[in-house]
C-alpha cells in the first residue's frame, strides 16, 4: 500500500469516495451544524462586545439617589426625592480619592432657532468627569453657557457658538456632548447641562461617584451604603457595573441558548452519520469479513471505520468553519464595523467549540457501527 498514507486512512478515504453523494450529504449535515453553533455563538459574542464597547466606560460609576419606598413614615433623614448638603458631604467622606459629582436636575423650556421644547436640564459642578465633548470643549468648572446632549443637538441642529434660550435666559452653546450610554447614571442625551446654581431647584437629585475601576467602585458603594444607611435607608446606591453585569449575564444566557439551538442540528448530523455508517458497514459486510479472515485485527477494522466517520466530521467541520468565519465577518462588519474582529479570542472559542463538537459527534456516531462490524464473526460475514 502507499507508504505515505496509513492503511486505515487509505481504506477510509477510498470507502468514502465510493459513494460520494452519500458521504457529501453526511458532511453537509455537519456543515450546517457547525455553521449553526459557530455563527450563533459569534452573533451572541458580537452582541456582547458591541454592548461593552458602548457601556464599558461607565462601569466604574456609582449613582447615589434618595431612597425610594421603604419607611415613608420615618423621621429625620430626608426621605423625599432630593439629597441634602449633609448627605452629599457624607458621600464625599465615604469616597475619598474618587470624583464626587452632585447632580441637580429640573425641567426647563428650551428655545433654539424656531424650535421650542421642554427638556431636562442637569447641572453638575464638574461636567468633564461624567461627559465627553463631541464638539466644543468641556470646562472643568462650569460657569457659563450650556452643553447640549447628543440626541438633542441632532434634533435641533445645534452648533457650538450659537445661542439657546433656557427658561427665558439666553446662553451660549459651549459644547455638544458625546452620546452617553443608557446605563450611565446621568443621561443628558435628550437634554442639556447648565452651570451650577442656574436651576430653580436648589436640592441635589443625585450624586455620581466615579472611581478608578469597577472593583474599587464596588468597595466604595459598600462604604457609602454603610455610612449613610446606618440607621435608616436614606439613599439608594446603584453601581453601573451591577446593571452592566446583569445585562451581560442575560446576554451570556442568550448566547448559550443560541448555541444550544445550534447543537440540535449537530446532533441531527450525528444521527445521519450513524445511519450512513450503519448502511455502509452492512453493505461491506463481506469485505470486512475478508479483512478479518486474512488476519486484520478487530481494532484495525474499527480504526478504518472510525477514520471514515471522523473524516466526515473533519471535512464537514472544516467547510462549516470556513463558511462560519465568513458569516462571522459579515456580522462583525455590520455590528462592530470591523470584519476582522471575527478573529477575536471570544469568537475563535466558538469556532473551536463547533469544530470540536463536529469531530466529537462524528466519532461517537461512528463508534457503534464500527464496533458492530468489527465484532462480527468472519465466517458468518463470508457466508453472506
Amino acid at each position, binding site marked *: 500500500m502507499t507508504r505515505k498514507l496509513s*492503511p486505515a486512512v487509505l481504506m477510509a478515504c477510498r470507502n468514502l469516495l465510493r459513494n460520494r453523494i452519500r458521504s457529501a450529504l453526511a458532511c453537509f449535515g455537519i456543515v450546517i451544524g457547525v455553521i449553526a453553533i459557530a455563527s450563533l455563538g459569534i452573533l451572541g459574542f458580537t452582541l456582547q462586545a458591541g454592548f461593552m464597547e458602548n457601556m464599558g466606560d461607565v462601569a466604574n460609576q456609582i449613582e447615589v439617589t434618595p431612597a425610594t419606598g421603604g419607611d415613608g413614615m420615618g423621621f429625620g433623614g430626608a426621605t423625599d426625592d432630593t439629597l441634602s448638603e449633609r448627605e452629599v458631604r457624607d458621600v464625599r467622606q465615604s469616597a475619598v480619592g474618587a470624583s464626587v459629582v452632585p447632580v441637580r436636575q429640573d425641567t426647563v423650556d428650551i428655545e433654539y432657532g424656531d424650535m421650542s421644547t421642554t427638556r431636562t436640564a442637569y447641572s453638575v459642578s464638574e461636567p468633564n468627569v461624567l461627559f465627553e465633548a463631541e464638539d466644543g470643549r468641556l470646562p472643568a468648572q462650569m460657569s457659563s453657557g450650556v452643553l447640549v446632549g447628543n440626541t438633542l443637538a441632532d434634533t435641533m441642529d445645534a452648533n457650538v457658538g450659537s445661542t439657546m434660550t433656557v427658561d427665558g435666559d439666553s446662553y451660549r452653546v459651549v459644547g455638544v456632548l458625546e452620546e452617553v450610554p443608557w446605563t450611565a447614571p446621568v443621561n443628558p442625551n435628550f437634554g442639556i447641562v447648565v452651570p451650577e446654581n442656574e436651576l430653580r431647584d436648589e436640592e441635589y437629585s443625585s450624586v455620581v461617584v466615579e472611581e478608578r475601576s469597577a472593583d474599587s467602585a464596588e468597595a466604595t458603594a459598600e462604604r457609602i451604603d454603610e455610612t449613610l444607611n446606618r440607621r435608616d435607608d436614606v439613599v439608594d446606591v446603584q453601581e453601573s457595573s451591577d446593571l452592566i453585569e446583569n445585562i451581560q449575564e442575560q446576554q451570556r444566557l442568550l448566547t448559550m441558548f443560541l448555541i444550544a439551538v445550534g447543537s440540535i442540528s449537530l446532533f441531527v448530523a450525528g444521527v445521519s452519520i450513524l445511519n450512513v455508517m450503519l448502511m455502509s458497514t452492512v453493505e461491506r459486510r463481506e469485505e470486512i469479513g*475478508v479483512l478479518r479472515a486474512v488476519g486484520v485485527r478487530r481494532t484495525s477494522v474499527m480504526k478504518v471505520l472510525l477514520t471514515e466517520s471522523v473524516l466526515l466530521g473533519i471535512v464537514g467541520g472544516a467547510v462549516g468553519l470556513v463558511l462560519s468565519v465568513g458569516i462571522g465577518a459579515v456580522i462583525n462588519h455590520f455590528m462592530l464595523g470591523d470584519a476582522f474582529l471575527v478573529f477575536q479570542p471570544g469568537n475563535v472559542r466558538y469556532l473551536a467549540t463547533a469544530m470540536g463538537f463536529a469531530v466529537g459527534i462524528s466519532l461517537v456516531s461512528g463508534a457503534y457501527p464500527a464496533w458492530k462490524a468489527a465484532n462480527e464473526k*468472519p465466517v458468518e460475514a463470508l457466508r453472506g
Partner: protein
Amino acid sequence: MSRKVAELEGVVKRYESGEDELTVLSGVDFGVERGEFVTVMGPSGCGKTTMLNILGLLDEPTEGTVRLDGKDATDLTEKERTLARRESIGFVFQDFYLIPTLTAEENVDVPTAFSGGSGGRARELLETVGLGDRVDHYPDELSGGQKQRVALARSLVNSPGVLLADEPTGNLDKETSDSVLDEIRRICDDGVGVVAVTHDEKLTEYSDRDVRLDEGEVRRTGKVTE
C-alpha cells in the same frame, strides 16, 4: 511427533437451528504436512468449506482439537486466532473476495498492511502469478482468472505455513486453472502445506494425496479416506 502444519483430530461440527440439529462434521481426523498438496473432495454441502474454516481458525469446532504447527489452537482467544491467521495461514476463498476499492497490489498487501506492510513482496508475488502489468488495476478491471491469481498472491503475502484454497479453480477456464494450479504446485514445492477443496477431478493430477469428505447420505458422518 507431528510434522503436520495443520491438523484436525476428532473434529465435530454441529449447527443448531431451533429444534433441529445438523451435524456437518462428525469426527474428522485430518492433517497436512509442509510441502504436501492435499485435495478434499465431496458433494456440495457435505462440509468442505466448514472443515477448511475450522482448519484455518476462522470457525470453531463443536468438539475435537485443532492444531497449528503442532500446537493446540482449539481454545485460542479471538485476538490470538486473528494473529495466527495473519502469521501462518493463507486463504483463497471460493469467491475471490477482493476489496473493490483497492488496487491489485493493495489487495495483495491487505493481510500485512496493518502490521507494517509486506515491503515489496506484494508486487513480487503479482509478478510471479503473471500480473506484473496489472498491479494498479482495480478488481473490476480484472478478469475472473486474474482476480483468482490476485487472491492467490494475497494468500501468500504473509509467507504462510499452510495454504487453504476453497475451489481455487471453480470459476476458471481450463487454461487459467492450469496456470493457477501450476502456481499452487510451485508454492507447495517451496515447503507450504496446501489443502485444496474442490469438485474438480483435475486437481488430483497436481496433488500428493486426495481425501473424500463423505457424508454418505444426508447429515451423516464426514469421513476422511486416503
